[in-house]
Every structure is written in structure tokens, then in C-alpha cells.
């Protein structure tokens, strides 16, 4: 019940995000969709992930995108249509992909089987231990990746004027 409500909200947010003309609006709609997803995670008993989702996507990524939007005001020469020149073929491809996915799910074994019982929610200790022991190497790699990404983003986007200063 709750799930379907959240699902509908999420999809609505996503569709809105994809179809708004004003980019800021679509970013806000996107955050709405992300929030819905987070709610679904909570529903599925993945508390940590849900909250991390809000923290990262709503708190960081959305703001980032908004900044990018404000920093890139498109000049007036852009054609009025928000759709790209080759949107028809793209629509076909999208439908194809979605059809395939839906078909796969529909003929997969899990279809129609009821949900199992909710497992007791995982405590933070478990997650921490898992991160520190079994997944230590991936964790470090992700850390390195983030550092590199930060440096790279700064170097790419740094303004020449500020460089000279």
C-alpha cells in the first residue's frame, strides 16, 4: 500500500523532472523523486541507504546541479524546442528498452510471488564492520576516487581569471 503510493510519487517526480522546460523546476522535481526513492528504501528496511540517499542526492547532488544550471545560462540562439533533433528515434529506442525490461520481469520467476517477511533492520555496527572488514578495499578505492574526482572537477571547472589571481 505505502509502497505503491511512494512508487507513484517517485515516478511522477521522475516524469516531471524529465519533462519540465525550466531546468530548475526539473531539478526540484528530481529531488522529489529522490526523496520518494529514499522513502522506498526505508520501507525496504535499508535505513542507512535511504538516509544516505537523502543526504547525498537531495543535499549535495541537487544543489550541485542547481549551481550548474545557474552557471550555464544558454544564449538566446538555442532553438525553442526542448527536444533534441533526433527525438523520434530516441523515443522508439526508449520504448524498446522499456518493453524488453518489462517483458523480462514479467516472465522472470519472481513475478507475482509475494514479498517475504521484513528482516530485522540492520544495525549500524554491522554496516560499519562490513565496510571496515569485508569491503575495506572497495571503500578505500571509492575514497581515492572521490578525491580524484574532486581535484579533477576543480581543475576542469576552475575559472581562468581566478587562476591568474
Amino acid at each position: 500500500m505505502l509502497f505503491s503510493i511512494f512508487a507513484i510519487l517517485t515516478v511522477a517526480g521522475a516524469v516531471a523532472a524529465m519533462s519540465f522546460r525550466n531546468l530548475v523546476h526539473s531539478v526540484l522535481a528530481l529531488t522529489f523523486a529522490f526523496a520518494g526513492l529514499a522513502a522506498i528504501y526505508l520501507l525496504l528496511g535499508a535505513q542507512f541507504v535511504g538516509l544516505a540517499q537523502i543526504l547525498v542526492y537531495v543535499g549535495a547532488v541537487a544543489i550541485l546541479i542547481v549551481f550548474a544550471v545557474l552557471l550555464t545560462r544558454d544564449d538566446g540562439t538555442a532553438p525553442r524546442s526542448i527536444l533534441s533533433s533526433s527525438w523520434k528515434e530516441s523515443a522508439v529506442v526508449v520504448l524498446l528498452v522499456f518493453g524488453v525490461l518489462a517483458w523480462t520481469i514479467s516472465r522472470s520467476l519472481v513475478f507475482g510471488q509475494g514479498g517475504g517477511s521484513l528482516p530485522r533492520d540492520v544495525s549500524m555496527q554491522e554496516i560499519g564492520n562490513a565496510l571496515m572488514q569485508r569491503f575495506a578495499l572497495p571503500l578505500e578505492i571509492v575514497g581515492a576516487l572521490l578525491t580524484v574526482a574532486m581535484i579533477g572537477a576543480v581543475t576542469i571547472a576552475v575559472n581562468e581569471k581566478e587562476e591568474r589571481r
Partner: protein
Amino acid sequence: MTWIVRNLWLIPALPAVAAGLSSLAKQGQRKFAASLAIGSMGVALVFSLFAFFHVLSSIHSGGPAREVFDFSWLQYGSDSLKLGWMLDPLTAVMLVMISFVGLLIFIYSTGYMAHDENFTRFFCFLSLFAAAMLGVVIANSLLLLFMCWELVGLTSYLLIGFWYQRPAAAAAAKKAFITTRIGDLAFLIGMVWLYSQSGTLLFYDGGAGCMEQSAIAHMVAQSTAAGMMVSTAIALLIFAGAVGKSGQVPLHVWLPDAMEGPTPVSALIHAATMVAAGVFLIARVYPLMSANGEIRAAMSSTTQLQVVTWVGAITAVFAALIAVAQNDIKRILAYSTVSQLGYMMMGLGVGGVAVGMFHLITHAFFKALLFLGAGSVIHGCHDEQDIHRMGGLKKLMPITFATYAIGMLALCGFPLFFSGFWSKDAILHAAQEWSVSRVPFYLGAFGALLTAFYMTRQVCYVFFGESRLSESMRHSNGAGSAPLYERSATPHESPAVMTMPLIILAACAILLGIIGTPAWPWFDRLLNGQPATVDGSRFYEAGVLSVMLLSSAIVFVGLGLGWWFYGRKPIASADAPDAVEELQPQIFRVLRNKFYVDELYQATFLRFNAWLAQVSDWFDRWIWNGAVRAVSYLVLGLSWVARSTDAYVVNRGFDEGCKSARDGGRLLSHMQDGRTQNYLRVVGVAFAVLVVFLIWGGSR
């Protein structure tokens, strides 16, 4: 385990630290950078000597010839990846050689690069290279070796392109890097395969290493699809890496171009150490190379060793032939390097580790000597590299001349007094006794002849006759990055900081011969981990003396021919065409008058040579370059293949075919319109297709 073995890592670590520090140095801090690099290299040399004598003592006291130190690098799951270093005679010898030659060349560079504004950068790169090279040598894990191997390649790239303002240098650097990549790719595949087979990349791990009996036997046991033994396949893949790195045919193309780099670099990297890394690699994995199935255990030589031998022999002659026709002083040396590397490979193939390595060591010394001499000549002649425009330097640069002559004689293998003679002789002897075929022996002999010939030619051009430099001053007003200092019209002897290394190296080039004579095969025994004994009677063993006589005869013939062509009468002017390129009637007449073998010689050999030079040049330019490009432009691969082929057709003159091919190329390249969404769309379709395929595959 003694102190030196545990702390062997210090030897590469020191230059690495030096590189790191001098990379922080400002452009102005020349003294700091130079002293740092030289100091670290000196300490590294001291450590290397420690290691060397440690090995000696342990051998003479009958101790273990090889000691390893392994540590686990990173832990994944239950398994762990181990790295390590080892100290065995091979390592010790290479360590001493590299750090010694390296030290001398560092000192030399302070003089040679004195006028370059990127002095500190140069020394940073040099130290980094030294570190990587020493790392290659001490590595006890194929992975560690590979890392340092790649690092060596990188530094070579950086140093070839050191004068990146010159397009030629930049292009050469790129060429070298990419060409060696081809070999390294094969190497990498071989390494991965080896790991999948033996489960470890340590060479020696107390019986568990991948170069030890169990793993080898396991690899020999299986056989690949083509029916060849897995060990053979892996060995060949690794050998491909060696081919790329040490410029064997067909991947030799980059080495001559690498001479665009500063001369000390050519001496250190592209003559003494790095190009020898390939040979060293083969020597290191020799157990794998000589791994043989029980069935053919009787037969002495394995498939992979035969391949090594043939490639080496062909390279030796091939490069020597090209060298005869060159005019650039450094290119001659480069091609001779290639051919000498061919000798080493051949020696490894026919005679085992000791033979090849002995030639490697001696060659390292005298070829470094030659390059530094050439550098001194170039330096003295204000960056003139064309030997036609030199001459008469014997009087002007006496020290350089003397040392250069020694080096040249050593390279030619002048009997008895020069190290080159003994090492080359060992190779020839082994080749003569090779069970499979005698052809490599003949090729080697022929190569020796050519070597003597072209070296004589070069020396005659450069040092004898009267100077043709004054007029060349008119021709070459400041080649490329000529360092700006007062241009005295007459060439001058180089400063002591450059001549001292020459003298030391010359001494080594003479003395080193002693340790490898048949009478006292100290080096051979050392590598096999046994003390050596003096025994003059070995001279009279089967074939030894005859081969010695034969090779010295060959050398004399070569020298004689060279002298006859070039040294006998001074070359008239810089524009005077080459004596052998039959453009001069009097030389024709002289030759005809002499004996008609020469005419045969003229008609066949020189034409053949010129033609071969052209062909190989053509090969360089179209086939191998085409391959390199194809690799580099992976996205446009198809269209590029079309392009290179159509260029090939253009050479033969079929224009319409070329045009159609080019159109095909353009057509293919049109598939790449830069639209992100088109790519994404293709991905989507592909995904859908894949899913459908998988589902149906699953339902079946």
C-alpha cells in the same frame, strides 16, 4: 638473511627519492639537482658493490647463490598478492653495471647538458629512470618487474621527448612509447596467463615460485589449442615484450628514432641499460625459456629458444646492413646497438644465460663509451651530427679520439685485448656448437664482418682526413636546440667532466674482457653460481681456438675493407658522395683493378644493402607505423587500416584504388558523428538485443 638482502630495495629507492626531490627543485637549482642525482647514484653504486661482494663471498663459501625477500603487497579476500626482490649473481652483476655506467653518464651529463635550461628536469628524469631500471633488475616478482618495466618505458618516453619543442623529438617519443606498448601488451597477456597457470608471479618462492620446478612442470604438462605447450606460448608472449623493449626485428623501428633525445640519454637508456632490459628479462625467465617436455627432453633446444635465436640472428645482420648506409653518427651507433642486441638474444638462444649476459655487460660498457664519445664529438662540433661534415678531429680532440677508437675496436671485437672480442667469440662459439642449425653461426660471422666495416667507415669519416666542419658551419646554422654558447669555428676538446668518464669507460672496455676468457671463464661460472679456475688448456678444447681465429680473421677483414674504402685517402669535401656508393669512378677503377670479388661485392651486396635499407625503411614507414597508428586510433581503426593500405597502393602507383579506399575510410568515419545521444541510443538498442538474446539463451 643478511642486511644487504633485506635492504636491497634501498638501491632503487635512493634514485627514486632523488627524482622526487629534484622534481620539486626550481629551474635555477642546477647544482642541487645534479649533486642530488649523482650522490644518490654513487650511494646506490656502493650498495650494489656490497651486494656484489656478498654474492661473491657466498658463492666462494659454497653458500646459496640466490637469496629472495618477499612480502605481501595487498590482501584481497583470502588470497594475497606478493612482491619481492632477490639477490643472485645475475642481479648483482646487472646492479653494478647499471649503477656504475649510470654514475659515469650522470657525471658526463652535467657537462653535456650544461647549457640546457631544463637541467633539473633532465636529472629528475634520469634519476627516475635509474630507479626504475634498478627496480627491474632486483625484482623477484614478474609483476614488480613489469611495473618497473613500464616505468622505464615512461622515462624513456619522457627523455626521448626531452626537447619536446622539436616536432621530430616529440614524434620519436610517441613512436617509441607506442611501439614498445605492442610488445608490452603481449608481455602483459603472458604475465596474466602465467599467473592463471602457476597462481603466483614470484620467480623464486622456495619451490612455489613460477620459475621453479613444480610450476614449470605443470605448465609443460598442458598444451594449448595449437598443440604447443603452455610454457612455450607464455614464453613467446613474454619474449614479445622483450622484442619490443630491446628493439628486435620487427619492433626495432623506434630505437633509431630514439636518438632524437639528448646523447647521454641515448648512451644510458638506448645503448647500455634499458634496451638490454629485454635481454635481461629473457635471462631472468630462462627456466621458462628452456622448459622442455619429457618427450623431447633429449633435444637440447626448445621451440622458444629457437625463436629467440632466429630473431636475434636475423636482427644482428639486418641492423648491421642498415648501419653501413647511415650518415648520422648517432644513427650508426643506434643500428649497431640493435644488431648487438640481436647478438645477445642469439647468445641467450644458443649458449644460455652466461653467454648472452656477458655480451650484454661488455656491450653496455663499450657502447656507452661510443655514445658518450659521439656526444663529445657532437658537442665539440656544435651539434653537427652528419659524419660527412666532420673529419680531422683526431688532432683536435685527442682524448675523444683515443677513447672512441678503443670503443670501436671493442665493438668490432678486435682480438685479445678488447672485451668485445671475448664476448662475441663466446657467442659465435656457442652458435657453432648449436645442435639445431648452423645458419645462425654464419649470420653472426657475417654480422661481425659488417660491424667491423661500418665502424671503420665511421671512424674514418669522423676522425681522419682534414676537417670539413668549417664549411658545414655554413650549412647548418644552429641545428634545432643548439645550446647558445660562443660558437668557435673550430671544434674543441670537451671539458674534463666529459672526458673523464670516457677514459674510465675505455679502461673498462679493455679490462672487462679478462673475466670472460675461455681460460678463466669467471663470469660464466659466476652466473652459474660456482667459483672459477684458471686453466689455459681450455683454449685447446674443441672449436674454441678455431672460432677465435676465424672471428679475429673476420674482424681484420672488416677493418681492412673499411680502411681501404675510407681511410686510405682523405675524403675530399662534405658533399663528396660516399665511397662505396659507387658514384666515384676512381674508387670504381681501384676496386676493379684490385680483384673482381669486389665487383661481385658491389653488384650484389651494396645494391642488396641499399635495396634492403630502402625496403626496411619502407617497412618502417608504412607497415609498422601503420600498425602503431591503427592501435593508437582505436576508434577509427577500420578506416585507418583502409587508409594505410591505400597509402601502400599509392606507393605502388594505383591511384584509383587508393581513392576508393579513402572513400571507404571516410564512409566508415562518418559513423562517428559526435552526437552523444546517438551513441547512447546505440547502447540502448544493443542492451535490448543482448537481454533478449540472453533470455532466449536461458530459456533453451
